[in-house]
């Protein structure tokens, strides 16, 4: 039964507190941290304010603007702490900023008019001085208010190991100090790329199929939506939304009932999520209209190309090869090099595919499972079944993903028949 605030003020107020915490956590932490410059302190102050709300609201009723009330409670606690602290001079200065916090915030009557500092917080979390591995976890904790243990499970980390890194990152932000601001015009490009990279990193972890991480896809999409609402004219934000949407659309068709991986060329388009597909296409159009190409838009266009090819039965391989070439110029990776070689094979035949694979630097190819899987395919297509089988064996030995292992075994067995 849902709590009824008229009959039971305690559970009613608790429900409102929980709802506000869920809806506005990141907004409030961002707001407080933007003033205190201290994320850990902002989280503590907000936790204290939420506790106060649980004690006060059942008696005096839920305030008209719960968010403004929480901000005031957080500010009062902060001022108390400053007054009792040893460093008087520093505190005086901070109290002045504290007053600024309260006057700016009491003006807002709901979250709509509360200035949104979450964008600044996202830029702080993904700052170049912060370890790339901790940027996304830091965003998930501070912007979305997710518990450390939940985030740690998704990252396959024991939670004390992640806690330590988050504490270290917040200390670095405080002591460096890293400024809470939106980067200026000439700096925003690379800084935004770091934010997008962190969000995409979280999404990819959500896609890896382990049970503790599936929720990350959803949260990464939420962060990207949030970013778009704050920076609607940045084409790469739309590009990332498109890329993640296409991948999300395809996810249900990616493994068959036996738990074997299914590549796009063998997937049933009827199993793709139509909503996500529409969202992806729409986002890619918005990105194109803003005329500023970038890595995520190209990757999204590649997804679109592969999926449209599957639907129409005629993949436009020259277009795909072209996109992989451009991608290689802006973001060369082992995955891109191997996928490009594969597209070259589709356009010009097995010999061209194998030649392109030959050109991939050993540092990219060695110990890269997909390299051997793709080379196996083109060796088989050129009639070299013995070497193809060797490559599939090598690929299987390097593969730590069970559905893909099953698929590789399937390909190996198909060679024999």
């Amino acid at each position, binding site marked *: 039964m849902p709590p009824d605030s008229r009959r039971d003020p305690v559970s009613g107020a608790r429900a409102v507190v929980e709802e506000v915490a869920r809806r506005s956590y990141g907004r409030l932490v961002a707001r407080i941290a933007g003033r205190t410059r201290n994320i850990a302190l902002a989280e503590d102050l907000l936790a204290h304010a939420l506790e106060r709300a649980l004690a006060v609201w059942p008696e005096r009723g839920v305030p008209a603007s719960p968010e403004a009330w929480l901000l005031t409670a957080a500010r009062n606690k902060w001022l108390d702490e400053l007054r009792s602290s040893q460093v008087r001079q520093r505190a005086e200065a901070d109290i002045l900023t504290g007053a600024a916090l309260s006057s700016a915030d009491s003006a807002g009557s709901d979250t709509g008019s509360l200035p949104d500092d979450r964008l600044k917080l996202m830029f702080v979390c993904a700052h170049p001085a912060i370890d790339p591995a901790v940027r996304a976890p830091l965003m998930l904790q501070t912007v979305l208010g997710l518990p450390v*243990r939940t985030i*740690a*499970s998704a*990252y*396959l*980390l*024991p*939670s*004390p*190991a992640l806690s*330590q890194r988050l504490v270290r990152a917040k200390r670095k932000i405080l002591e460096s100090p890293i400024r809470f601001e939106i980067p200026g015009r000439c700096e925003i490009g690379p800084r935004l790329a770091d934010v997008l990279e962190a969000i995409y990193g979280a999404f990819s972890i959500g896609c890896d199929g*382990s*049970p*503790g991480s599936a929720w990350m896809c959803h949260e990464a999409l939420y962060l990207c939506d949030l970013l778009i609402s704050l920076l609607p004219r940045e084409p790469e934000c739309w590009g990332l939304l498109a890329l993640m949407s296409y991948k999300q659309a395809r996810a249900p068709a990616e493994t068959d009932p036996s738990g074997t991986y299914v590549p796009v060329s063998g997937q049933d388009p009827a199993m793709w999520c139509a909503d996500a597909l529409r969202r992806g296409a729409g986002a890619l159009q918005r990105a194109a209209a803003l005329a500023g190409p970038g890595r995520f838009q190209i990757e999204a266009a590649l997804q679109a190309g592969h999926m449209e090819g599957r639907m129409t039965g005629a993949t436009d391989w020259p277009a795909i090869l072209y996109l992989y070439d451009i991608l290689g110029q802006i973001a060369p990776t082992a995955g891109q090099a191997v996928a490009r070689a594969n597209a070259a094979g589709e356009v010009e035949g097995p010999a061209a595919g194998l030649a392109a694979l030959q050109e991939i630097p050993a540092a990219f190819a*060695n*110990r890269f*499972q997909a390299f051997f899987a793709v080379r196996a395919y083109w060796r088989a297509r050129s009639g070299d079944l013995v070497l193809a089988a060797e490559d599939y*064996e*090598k690929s299987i*030995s*390097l*593969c*730590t993903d*069970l559905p893909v*292992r099953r698929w590789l075994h399937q390909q190996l067995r198909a060679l024999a028949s």
Partner: protein
Amino acid sequence: MRYTLLLYSDETLFASMTDEDRQQSLMVFGEFIKQLRQAGALVDTDWLQPGSMTTRVSMQNGEVRVQDGPFVDSRDQLGGYFVIDVPDLDAALAWAGKCPAARFGTIEVRPSGMPPGGNPYAA
């Protein structure tokens, strides 16, 4: 070919783990163990208690000497191991790279020195 993955990490991290933290760590490693087993690569694994729980045994002057305490006083301690059976070193490195311990510590990968088929004199 058998390889042993020796997992080293800062054990002060795990000094004050709550029960929930412990469960969460078990879950994280459980997932990895399951994947190794499903790939047919798992031989053995264990999670060791802290270095402070070590008891040392050695023979000195013809007598067995038993001593309490860790041998080295270092933050990075052997915290566990995996023994895996995979085709070659590249495969062993792929699994070591996927091991959760690689994300918060260091993994030493050592090939087995045992003759194929095990110690013939132990049969």
